[in-house]
């Protein structure tokens, strides 16, 4: 077992554990914090996968923005009575069964795919993933359009959420 593998295992275990705690924690703030841990673990995994830019983007966007947003929302929608007691609804059995079934199905599919054991090719020296990424996102013959559409999406989301959450004077 190489060091990388051990690191991977540890990080994966932590992330998974945090994920489990996210979905089972009674206290919602705790769940949100465990989410942060989980997201951080995933960022580490990105590093292991030689996607450094993504790791940083993950931390900044997800943890820095999204998780904070979630915490804000939790705080804004606190109801003391509802926050105690079991946090799972009456159909959690079905949910668990489905999740397990899905995992089983995916596992089984992996077994049947020969490409599952592709070896890790080392990256070439000249390849600079960040530059590549930057060029891909902004080159007109590559993914510029996608980039722009995503931007419009973000703009729409921005405006939309403001509209939705606006306090209406006439209500």
């Amino acid at each position, binding site marked *: 077992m190489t060091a990388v593998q051990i690191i991977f295992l540890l990080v994966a275990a932590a992330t998974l554990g945090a994920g489990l705690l996210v979905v089972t924690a009674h206290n919602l703030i705790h769940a949100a914090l465990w989410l942060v841990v989980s997201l951080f673990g995933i960022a580490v995994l990105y590093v292991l996968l030689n996607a450094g830019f993504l790791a940083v983007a993950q931390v900044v966007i997800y943890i820095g923005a999204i998780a904070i947003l*979630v915490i804000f929302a939790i705080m804004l*929608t606190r109801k003391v009575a509802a926050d105690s007691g079991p*946090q799972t609804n009456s159909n959690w059995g079905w949910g668990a069964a489905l999740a397990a079934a899905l995992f089983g199905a995916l596992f089984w599919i992996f077994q049947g795919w020969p490409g599952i054991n592709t070896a890790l090719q080392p990256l070439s020296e000249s390849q600079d993933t960040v530059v590549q990424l930057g060029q891909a996102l902004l080159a007109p013959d590559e993914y510029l359009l996608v980039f722009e559409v995503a931007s419009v999406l973000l703009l729409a989301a921005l405006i939309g959420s403001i509209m939705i959450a606006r306090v209406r004077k006439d209500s």
Partner: protein
Amino acid sequence: MIPLSWYLIFAAALFCTGLFGVLARKNSIAILMGIELMLNSVNVNLVAFWRYRTPETITGQVFAIIVFAVAAAEVAVGLALFISIYRRRNTVVADEINLLKW
């Protein structure tokens, strides 16, 4: 060397965890957190595939970036919705938001 299968299994497990959270949690924001887990697992999948299968083309990472954007947008809108609902009905428990029942 970490085989691809480890990443994929990890991503599948995380996805299923997130799925469980979506299906079984009472609080709507907890559901959103489950959704975030699922999106992240997908991202991990994408990047793993990029690294192991087509490391020369950057398409995998681009995809992942776009997923980030989408996730962010979705969280924003969703939380705005929940806050609006909270203002109206004083609850964010998913089971109680059931006006569209029979």
